[in-house]
């Protein structure tokens, strides 16, 4: 079976020789091509080449057509991204500097025609041609409750959510939901198999479960317009166990990227065979682990999740500080212990 078929088997509960093994090599592409992040992310061809080289080097299952999260803000008018020498770029110029800017914010009629979308589109196009029939291609989309963080910063967004005028907050959510709908549609059309749906306010670590159910969830439904195919629920690494049941019932999302801070046994029990449990290893701790510790943790996670299928093993955000031998050990162990 191809990695893509193995993923489909995990999603549908069919038999497969092993579980899917995902790695999120988002920051590793520039190093692979001996480029700075700024140079690397300037062209979709570079991004695709980086992902293909990483796929060849490590042999994991998936590739990413993502540049950096700030690209969403650039499509909406952000003028400056802070590119570090290494590591993830972040938004330096906020599009929304005052609440008046919310009214002025315009969502392009077709984001796939926007110049800033082009690098992602080019990357996705190359990946689709090269590996689209064999390997899962992943994309990233900010939900309506997460995109405002890139547009105005977490501090100001939190202020608006909790203390600001509700009509203004909802106006921004409507615009961001419109953007999210377009982005999800564009990714699907261009051949992405998996869309990591980032929902920072979809975790009880951020806001109360009541507020998630009454405010965030209805907007999630609007973001996805009744089609949760290929969507993976992701809370930026924050815990989600307490809301999985609600999101599953209300929004219909079938795959959950469980936080290393969550209890995986509990997650698997909640999701059961109704969806895909994706276990993320704590790769920040892994920076200081030995090879033996890395293998032991992979084994522990897979032993919890593998029984009954509907399970995927994956990394978290893979910091560049990870020792090479730990990355190799993690992937080898995942293939070894993930045999079915």
């Amino acid at each position, binding site marked *: 079976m191809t990695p893509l078929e193995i993923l489909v088997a995990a999603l549908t509960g069919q038999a497969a020789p092993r579980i899917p093994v995902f790695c999120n090599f988002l920051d590793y592409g520039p190093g692979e091509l001996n480029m700075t992040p700024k140079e690397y992310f300037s062209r979709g061809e570079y991004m695709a080449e980086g992902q293909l080289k990483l796929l060849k080097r490590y042999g994991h299952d998936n590739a990413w057509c993502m540049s950096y999260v700030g690209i969403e803000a650039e499509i909406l008018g952000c003028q400056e991204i802070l590119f570090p020498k290494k*590591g993830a770029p972040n*938004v330096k110029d906020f599009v929304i500097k005052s609440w008046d800017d919310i009214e002025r914010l315009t969502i392009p009629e077709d984001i796939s025609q926007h110049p800033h979308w082009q690098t992602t589109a080019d990357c996705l196009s190359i990946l689709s041609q090269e590996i689209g029939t064999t390997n899962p291609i992943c994309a990233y989309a900010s939900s309506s409750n997460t995109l405002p963080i890139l547009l105005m910063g*977490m*501090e100001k967004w939190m202020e608006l959510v909790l203390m600001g005028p509700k009509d203004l907050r909802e106006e921004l959510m409507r615009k961001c939901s419109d953007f999210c709908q377009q982005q999800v549609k564009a990714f699907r059309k261009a051949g992405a198999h998996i869309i990591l749906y980032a929902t920072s306010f979809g975790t009880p*670590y*951020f806001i109360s479960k009541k507020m998630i159910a009454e405010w965030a969830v209805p907007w999630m439904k609007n973001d996805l317009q009744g089609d949760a195919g290929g969507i993976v629920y992701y809370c930026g690494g924050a815990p989600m166990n307490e809301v999985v049941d609600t999101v599953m019932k209300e929004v219909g999302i079938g795959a959950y990227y469980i936080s290393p801070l969550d209890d995986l046994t509990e997650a698997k029990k909640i999701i059961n065979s109704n969806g895909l449990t994706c276990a993320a290893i704590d790769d920040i701790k892994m920076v200081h682990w030995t090879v033996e510790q890395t293998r032991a943790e992979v084994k522990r996670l897979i032993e919890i999740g593998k029984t009954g299928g509907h399970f995927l093993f994956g990394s978290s955000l893979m910091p560049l500080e990870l020792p090479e031998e730990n990355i190799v050990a993690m992937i080898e162990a995942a293939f070894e212990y993930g045999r079915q």
Partner: protein
Amino acid sequence: MFEQYVKDYNEAIIETDKEAAIAVVEEAISNGVTPEEVVFKIVMPAVEDMMQLVIDNLDTNLAQHFMTAQIAAEITEKMLAQFSAPPEIIGKAVIGSSFGDLHSLGKRIVMGCLKSMMVDVIDLGVNITAVDFVDAAVEHDAQVIAVSSMMMHTATGEEGSLQIRELLHERGLEKKIKLIVGGSPFRYDKELYTSVGADNWAPDGISAAKIICQLIHEVKAS
């Protein structure tokens, strides 16, 4: 009656209801409660209660931390202007986001709590170099440097806390100035703070304020 104000204020904080919290304080003041009592017997205990909930790992969220700090800071600032005598400041801290890091929410929570706990806190902003952290701590005679980092490369990078530690060492300031770090990467690896040269760390803004107060006391006692 006073106990009722305390209870109502705490409920408003848990519900992240700023208007209700301010209404409680206004009613208390109009019924003869002094500004000093508002700060020391209502606001500060509410911050400490939230700290305890976090320490006990009970069900609190970032929104509650944010509102606890925000409301505490706003009310404390208003009340301080009405104090009969200036309050005793327990110490000073400089705070900022590490070099290359533009995230600011965490430090705002820490600052709000510290203000209500009578710590003079100087906000250096975001994307702060190690030299600027140390220079500012010296200039303001601060006992603590607090560094917020939300990304792994800003938490562990050579131009962040590691360099602050080096500068403190080179300038012979290690006994006078303590270094605390916080932010997302430290929540995943509870020992990470040692590898970046920090004296301590905190998993959230509320706990950070408590640890900063402890560090201030340590420096003053030495």
